[in-house]
């Protein structure tokens, strides 16, 4: 729960080239910047963590993932979590129940996103794994400078280019 203490930092960047943005800080390593132009009529709400519903009905949600929250076995390499979760790596070498939990989760993600395309990219120190369906996406971000936690971002009813733009600012 240590990461659930969320700071919403308002940073007005007048006079700068960057558009004014509100920052949701999920951890020192994962901060989502939302342009102010998108915040008119938006609602911030708490579920497992902070989520934002925009005026067009799209919803953005973030979640810090660590060993504790997923009850992963000691020594589990969190950097592999995205690859197991998105079907990029076989779970055959994992013990139960972890193998089934990951493979079932991938099947459920495919069902929820209607057979999404999965991409892997790099932005600075961060590896970004993204699965996007027709109107929803889920991403897992790994900061290569630490393995204590990773980050999940999900967007539902989202324009894909808008989602990917938000993702690139993390």
């Amino acid at each position, binding site marked *: 729960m240590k990461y659930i203490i969320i700071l919403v930092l308002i940073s007005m960047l007048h006079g700068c080239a960057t558009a004014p943005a509100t920052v949701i800080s999920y951890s020192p390593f994962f901060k989502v910047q939302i342009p102010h132009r998108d915040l008119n009529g938006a*609602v911030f*709400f*708490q*579920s*497992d*963590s902070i*989520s934002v*519903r925009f005026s067009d009905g799209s*919803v953005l*949600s973030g*979640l810090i*993932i660590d060993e504790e*929250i*997923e009850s992963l076995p000691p020594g589990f390499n969190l950097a592999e979590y995205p690859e197991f*979760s998105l079907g990029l790596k076989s779970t055959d070498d994992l013990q139960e*129940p972890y193998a*089934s*939990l*990951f*493979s*079932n*989760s991938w*099947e*459920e*993600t495919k*069902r*929820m996103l209607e057979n999404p395309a999965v991409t892997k990219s790099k932005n600075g120190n961060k590896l970004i794994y993204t699965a996007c369906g027709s109107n929803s996406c*889920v991403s897992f971000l790994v900061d290569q400078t630490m393995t204590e936690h990773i980050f*999940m971002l*999900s967007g*539902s009813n989202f324009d894909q280019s808008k989602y990917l733009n938000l993702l690139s600012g993390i």
Partner: protein
Amino acid sequence: MLTKLEKDNLYHLIVAVIGDDATVKIYRHDFNDNTVDIVEDMLSADSKCNSNMRKLIVDLSSSGSLATKGWLKKLLKFNSKVIKKIDLKGYGCQVTVKSRWRTAIVNSAI
């Protein structure tokens, strides 16, 4: 518009699937037809997260008409005692999947 009984039944069903949650509990007062649709999708027999869901729903539903959209709304009206006793034996997916459903459920009730 859901009755209080339907909202309570829906909440108990959510707890049985993805566990208790303070936020979902608070928002149960504003559960509505959109919430029912989301939970019905979460309980889909196609989901790998609920391997015993098909048998459970057949047991609960007198007609066993799983394929018909809207089955959950019917179930919420007539099976309150049964719903409170059901045991889905755990959710077979990661917390991150549960979290996405939980967010959708809360969002539907805002």
